[in-house]
């Protein structure tokens, strides 16, 4: 039984038991001496659905697998196992021309605005290139569409930015260019991989605003990946919390933030700093740090740090179970 979040109609994106294992690099000597290959189980069997028009966030700390998930969804890397359905179509093993056609419907915005644009191409060329690649527009017409897009993301006057090079722009501006490039093909679905974490604090709200505005205007669906839970709370409709390659809790935003059930979610939320000295809240202090994803702990991966861990937690991995409308938890201690 797949966890299905209740919403309207068929989900735009459906992920079933998605896995990605990376073989650990071994030296020549190691390869000679032993046949055993270790794997980094970056994503180890996750399932979720995103409805059309919503913002689905995947939140977690570094190493939890959220970034890998993003890349898997847009098929920049191939899954080791599981399935991905987009608009009902199985895109898991798509390749070649079919995959390229998918790119028109599904785009990604990367975390690092300083590295995601071609430094030798003008801004206008960077943004317009997708149009050329897919044979949608060339020359004058391409220019017109790019100018419109630049205006939409607030880079005005568009003509000045069209002819500029990436290094002439600030981080915030470059990220807006990345947004423009992702949107120019009018996709249905956008994966945003930590889109504001490398931008100056004073410029972040601008990008968030832009993304929200464009979502309405262009009827988009987002998979928003972040480590910043305050941002996740601000922007999402639904949220999934990941830990060591697994989803530990998932549900509608209000529910997760007001009534978290998983001890990790609890600890995570209580650790988020708040810009308000008057707030007094119960803070859960977790011991230790995230274990290595190469050899995750047995049973429930969180048991080594969990204040509620019992015997069964050490032996058996908990399944992601529905405990309420739009609320799923993977924990033995939750009824």
């Amino acid at each position, binding site marked *: 039984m797949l966890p299905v979040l209740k919403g309207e109609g068929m989900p735009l994106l459906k992920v079933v038991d998605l896995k990605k294992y990376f073989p650990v690099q071994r030296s020549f000597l190691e390869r000679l001496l032993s046949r055993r290959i270790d794997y980094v189980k970056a994503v180890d069997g996750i399932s979720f659905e995103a409805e059309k028009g919503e913002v689905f966030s995947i939140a977690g700390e570094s190493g939890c697998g959220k970034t890998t998930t993003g890349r898997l969804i*847009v098929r920049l890397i191939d899954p080791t196992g599981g399935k991905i359905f987009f608009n009902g179509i199985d895109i898991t093993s798509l390749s070649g021309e079919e995959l390229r056609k998918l790119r*028109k419907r599904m785009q990604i915005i990367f975390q690092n605005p300083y*590295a995601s644009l071609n430094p030798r191409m003008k801004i206008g060329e960077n943004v317009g290139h997708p149009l050329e*690649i897919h044979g949608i527009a060339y020359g004058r017409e391409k220019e017109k569409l790019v100018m419109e897009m630049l205006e939409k993301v607030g880079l005005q006057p568009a003509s000045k930015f069209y002819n500029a090079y990436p290094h002439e722009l600030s981080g915030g501006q470059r990220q807006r260019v990345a947004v423009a*490039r992702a949107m120019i093909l009018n996709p249905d679905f956008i994966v945003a991989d930590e889109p504001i974490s490398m931008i100056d604090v004073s410029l972040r709200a601008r990008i968030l605003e832009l993304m929200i505005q464009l979502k309405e205007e262009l009827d988009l669906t987002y998979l928003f990946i972040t480590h910043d839970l305050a941002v996740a709370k601000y922007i999402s409709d639904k949220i999934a919390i990941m830990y060591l390659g697994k989803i530990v809790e998932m549900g509608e935003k209000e529910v997760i933030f007001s009534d978290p059930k998983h001890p990790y979610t609890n600890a995570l939320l209580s650790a988020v700093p708040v810009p308000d000295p008057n707030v007094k809240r119960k803070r859960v202090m977790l011991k230790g740090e995230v274990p290595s994803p190469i050899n995750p702990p047995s049973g429930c991966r969180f048991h080594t740090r969990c204040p509620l861990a019992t015997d069964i937690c050490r032996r058996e991995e908990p399944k992601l179970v529905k405990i309420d409308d739009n609320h799923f938890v993977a924990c033995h201690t939750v009824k």
Partner: protein
Amino acid sequence: MANLTAPKMITSMLSKISPRRGVEGLFIIVGLAIILTFIFMAIFAPVLAPYDPNKTRVGGLYESPNPKFPMGTDRLGRDILSRIIWGSRTVLIVTFLSMALSSACGVTLGLISGYVGGKFDTALSLFMDSLYAFPGLILAIALAVMLGQGIMPVTVSLTVVYVPIYFRMIRSEVLSMKESLFVEAAKAIGAKGRTLIFKYIFPNVIPSIPIVLSLNAADAVLTLAALSFLGLGLPAHIPDWGFDLRMGYGALTAKIWWPGTFPGLMIVLLTLGFSLFGEGLAEILNPKLSGG
């Protein structure tokens, strides 16, 4: 901040040369001046040279430098100045031609091999590395002996010597660039292999080429001179500094310094010109290369 597409690169460089640049700017200016002087000499050789460089007995044998023959004459009575001037044509033609061919070949192969990877890349790299392992001069000598005399055979041997340098450099840049985020982003928008190589990777590896070009040219001048010195490569009727150096070298014992010294000086000067230019360029472009 300068953007580095080729024409703008030159102008931005020239503007950066003034006040603050100091040593690197000087290198570039001096180097360029030397190179341009020789190019001028080469182009206008027919007009500049007072005599036919191959005509014997235009003056006495081993005449020391005098107003009629500012650089004196050699053992066959040929005007050394005219031979120097015409010699610059030889050197520059061979150098520029071999540079053009080796860079075109090396860069293209490096791009494709680095991008495609796999067995093709492994095999080609192995081949290039073995060529590279040869000391340049030995390789050039071996090829010159095999290919025989003439401008084209010499050009080809020099070309072969330098191809691995471009190949290795471009290939390693391609390998690192393949993993960069903007290339991944290009894949995400649907770009195919050829587009990725020529629109994304190639423009970003170009900046390192001019430096290597210049430094290789310096090396080529010396290698060509060495080949001619050994009597390989160029036939006798083509005026050539290395050959003249060889002929002049023998006369030194008799205290006849001019037939050897002038060609030697020209070789050193031209090599210096290319080196200074290349080093100065490296200094100026490198901060840009690492900064972005």
